[in-house]
């Protein structure tokens, strides 16, 4: 490593120099700046013809399967449509009550009543019906693969990379091949949600079965258990808790995918309602429908989580709620045949605050126009544009109020040089080199950077953080993006996600530090984070698109709102769960609170914080794709276009591109975290 360490500043300098050189000669040799179109070998036609061939052979089989799968969905939709609202509500109330207590019962009940009250009952039930079918299927699939992965190392070596892939490919990209294979209909949502939701079940099954202590297994063997008994009576019950947590995650993933699947349209469900109203700029309706999704998500999350973590009762205290539940539900079912208002929510009781909300929003937008525009423009002109197209182009009388004169450019160069000089004086040559590189990239702009230079920078960064293998992987991945002709879109995605991640991470880390030092802050932040995390992705878009309309800034805010959660969470968790004896030792030595934080806690929590960065990036990329709905131009948009036109090649190329970026970023940040952890001899922390 010493050799590479010595070389590092030199190579960074060289990369900065390369960028300048290529940028300067780009005027005369454009191919050095932009990858020439003539060299692009787009795989889209190839992919389409492959897919076409596949469909012509296997299409009927998939169509038949789709036809089969549609039946259970129809039945469950028919069932939920048939059940009186009072009965369904009662079922949820009792599930909450038995799982956790009257608070959750009340919450679940009020959520259901809200759906009826607002007039979205049927749409909600249609979404719920798909979840109801996809969860058992995903759980079964996940369980089978999990058990296989547990018993066979070879199976695990095949299964785990597939899970990694399924979980890094953006949700949108799933829909496309499924749409092509199965054709329009509810089946697409069902299949997509099964595919998206079964990986957590596999992971939790393997994790749970592995975590059963050896002595418990031996106790089973010594009791004379046959291999089958050992599995069903020992391993499985002992792993139950972890697997129920898997069920919780699977349910949430299934719901979120069912909602996302609404983009293909044609289904009368709540996701479609949100999307449709959002497109028509009916933000009141959109928000009301979005709220339904959030409530369904929170209820399902709390209920499944409650059952997963329910402590064992020694002796049942109080009444048997299952019996009461059955009695009450039967009574309601009977009564609803007599009283129609118990079966169908009466029209007279419908409440539609959407027009009022729209009016209020209009008032805010009109009266707050200056403010809103001001914030938007400031962020756009002073932060986003410079990173996107560089100070070189971003600074103009229109945006900054003045021209970027040669004198000013010289001043900028001087500023960067001063920074380099300061770092060099401190003996930190790598830092000096990175300052220079930063200065160059800021001047040229990420999207205007010569492709060769950017390619080299990414590959070298991968090499420095994670070693040769990742550098090779990065090179191959980036080469694919360049040759497939989606490089400009990729850079746009990297730019938007990068800005969002930078802001989320810095802001989130600060809030996380604050929350770790202050219990009040922690107790305020926690429920907000829980809510944001259970919220299906495109519900988060709604409030931002309401105020700031469509565009990059709205996308940025939505990504930040979602991606800031892990940054806060991991920082706080890392700072609060340090080894007790180290803190005690520092206290005994006489650290002040500030010293304790900066000299002890933060350095030790660094691996956890870096893991938070990793999750921030993954969350950011997940949301980035969804923001294509509000008009960002990047890979997400290409996926969306592919989906809209049923163009498998276009969508898939972009989807793979997104996965490449996600995986490279993931491996890089994980490598940093792991290195720090090994250095400290800490065990990896999972939340």
């Amino acid at each position: 490593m010493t050799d590479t360490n010595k070389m590092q500043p030199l190579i960074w300098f060289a990369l900065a120099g390369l960028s300048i050189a290529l940028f300067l000669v780009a005027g005369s040799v454009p191919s050095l700046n932009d990858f020439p179109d003539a060299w692009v070998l787009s795989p889209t036609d190839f992919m389409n013809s492959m897919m076409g061939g596949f469909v012509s052979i296997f299409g009927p089989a998939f169509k038949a399967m789709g036809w089969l799968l549609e039946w259970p969905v129809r039945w469950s939709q028919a069932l939920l449509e048939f059940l009186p609202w009072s009965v369904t509500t009662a079922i949820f109330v009792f599930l909450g009550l038995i799982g956790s207590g009257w608070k959750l019962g009340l919450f679940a009940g009020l959520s259901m009543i809200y759906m009826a009250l607002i007039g979205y009952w049927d749409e909600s039930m249609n979404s719920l019906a798909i979840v109801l079918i996809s969860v058992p299927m995903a759980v079964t699939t996940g369980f089978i693969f999990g058990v296989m992965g547990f018993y066979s190392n070879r199976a695990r070596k095949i299964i785990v990379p597939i899970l990694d892939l399924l979980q890094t490919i953006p949700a949108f990209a799933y829909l496309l091949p499924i749409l092509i294979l199965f054709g329009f209909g509810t089946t697409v949502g069902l299949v997509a949600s099964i595919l998206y939701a079964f990986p957590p079940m596999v992971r939790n099954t393997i994790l749970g079965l592995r975590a059963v202590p050896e002595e418990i297994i031996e106790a089973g063997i010594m009791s004379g258990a046959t291999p089958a008994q050992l599995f069903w009576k020992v391993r499985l019950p002992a792993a139950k808790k972890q697997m129920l947590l898997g069920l919780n995650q699977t349910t949430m993933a299934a719901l979120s995918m069912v909602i996302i699947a609404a983009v293909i349209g044609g289904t009368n469900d709540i996701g479609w309602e949100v999307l449709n109203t959002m497109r028509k700029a009916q933000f009141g309706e959109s928000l009301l429908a979005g709220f339904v999704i959030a409530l369904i998500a929170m209820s399902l999350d709390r209920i499944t989580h409650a059952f997963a973590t329910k402590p064992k009762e020694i002796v049942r205290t109080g009444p048997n709620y299952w019996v009461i539940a059955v009695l009450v539900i039967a009574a309601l079912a009977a009564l609803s045949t007599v009283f129609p208002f118990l079966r169908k929510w009466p029209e007279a009781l419908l409440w539609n605050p959407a027009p009022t909300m729209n009016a209020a929003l209009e008032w805010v937008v009109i009266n707050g126009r200056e403010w809103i525009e001001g914030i938007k423009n400031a962020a756009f002109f002073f932060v986003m544009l410079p990173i996107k197209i560089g100070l070189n182009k971003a600074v103009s009388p229109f945006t900054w109020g003045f021209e970027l004169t040669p004198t000013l450019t010289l001043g900028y160069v001087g500023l960067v040089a001063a920074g380099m000089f300061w770092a060099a004086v401190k003996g930190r040559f790598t830092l000096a080199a990175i300052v220079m590189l930063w200065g160059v990239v800021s001047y040229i702009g990420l999207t205007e950077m010569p492709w060769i230079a950017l390619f080299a920078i990414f590959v070298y960064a991968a090499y420095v953080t994670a070693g040769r293998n990742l550098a090779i992987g990065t090179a191959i991945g980036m080469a694919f993006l360049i040759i497939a002709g989606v490089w400009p879109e990729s850079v746009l995605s990297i730019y938007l996600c990068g800005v969002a991640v930078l802001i989320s991470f810095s802001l989130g880390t600060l809030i996380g530090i604050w929350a770790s030092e202050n219990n009040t802050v922690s107790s305020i932040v926690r429920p907000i984070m829980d809510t944001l995390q259970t919220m299906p992705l495109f519900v988060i878009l709604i409030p931002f698109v309401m105020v700031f309309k469509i565009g990059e800034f709205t996308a940025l805010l939505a990504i930040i709102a979602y991606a800031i959660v892990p940054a806060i969470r991991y920082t706080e968790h890392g700072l609060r769960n340090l080894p007790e004896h180290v803190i005690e030792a520092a206290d005994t030595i006489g650290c002040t609170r500030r010293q304790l934080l900066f000299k002890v806690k933060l350095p030790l929590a660094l691996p956890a914080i870096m893991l938070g960065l990793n999750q921030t990036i993954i969350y950011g990329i997940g949301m980035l794709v969804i923001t294509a709905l509000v008009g960002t131009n990047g890979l997400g948009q290409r996926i969306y276009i592919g989906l809209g036109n049923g163009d498998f090649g276009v969508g898939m190329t972009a989807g793979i591109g997104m996965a490449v970026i996600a995986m490279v970023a993931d491996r890089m940040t994980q490598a940093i975290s792991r290195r720090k952890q090994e250095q400290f001899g800490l065990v990896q922390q999972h939340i």
Partner: protein
Amino acid sequence: MPEGNAPSEQVKLSCRNIWKIYGSQPQQFFDGTKGNVGDAPAARGLAQNIRDSEHIVAAANVSFDVHVGEIFVIMGLSGSGKSTVVRCLSRVVEPTAGEILMDGQDLLKVSKSELIEYRRHKMGMVFQNFGLMPHLNVLDNIAFPLEIQGISLKKRREKAREIIDLVGLQGREASFPSQLSGGQQQRVGIARSLAVEPELWFLDEPFSALDPLIRRQMQDEFLRLQRELNKSIVFITHDFLEALRIADRMAIMRDGEVVQIGRPVDLILNPANDYVKDFTNDVPSEMVLTAGDIANASRPLTPEMGHISADISLATLLPYLADNEAGIMVRDGNGNDLGAITARDVVKALATNAPEGAGA
């Protein structure tokens, strides 16, 4: 120990030349030898040979007999192979070579299903960290081995209730393991292992995870249970004093090999080597020396003196002597009087056995 039923001479379990080797090809070292590779130096040579060829020797040429009703202790530090050996006895860990004879039947030759029958009816095991089923309450944990046998719910719960009384867990039937203290959990573990009324009882460091006070109490209860049940026991421990307290006979293990086998007193009086001696150095003399060792033939015997057997430890004798100045008579197994002991004799014996520098 003196208070126990005298173990019989009948061999219950015989462990012959057991080897357990981990590595890529453990079998290659034992072509048809059944593990019997010759005398002790030959075995030691083979063990070294195996280590040199990048295999791990967890147990090397381990042989011992456990008699009916005997508490046989295997004592060794961590990594000495003692836990491996006890697992080999029930084939939870499959031995690489050797023979394990239970009532003359070689367990290594029985089929999988026969082995399951053995485990179901003839063996019970207690684990260091209890190994309780987290999802079952106390009663069902104890009834678990019976459930595995397919015994009806009513019958197995009935049986479990009987055993709950035996280990003093009345009132905790419905608790879950996570709601119990360590001592209570191990009582459940003990009860479970006894549910099938095993003939062979394996205990793998059963008290090591407990606090010292609880440990002591559990040892006493274990001895009480054994007086009642008279099982043939293999007891694993890393605690030499614990071994002394409960063992009829004991084996000391090191690096997978048995260093010495014998009664505790034999080990202390005649340690086979410095390794064994290191353990015995810390043993308080009053626990080891028996009345027979210091009986003073020249003391006058008076009719009102009580009498005790020669193998009682001095530690047991001390409270009696504190109250009886005249002393006590010592009788050997055949009823012959060996002499008498007074408090003064004990003090003298302990003083001479005390470490150097304490003054004689």
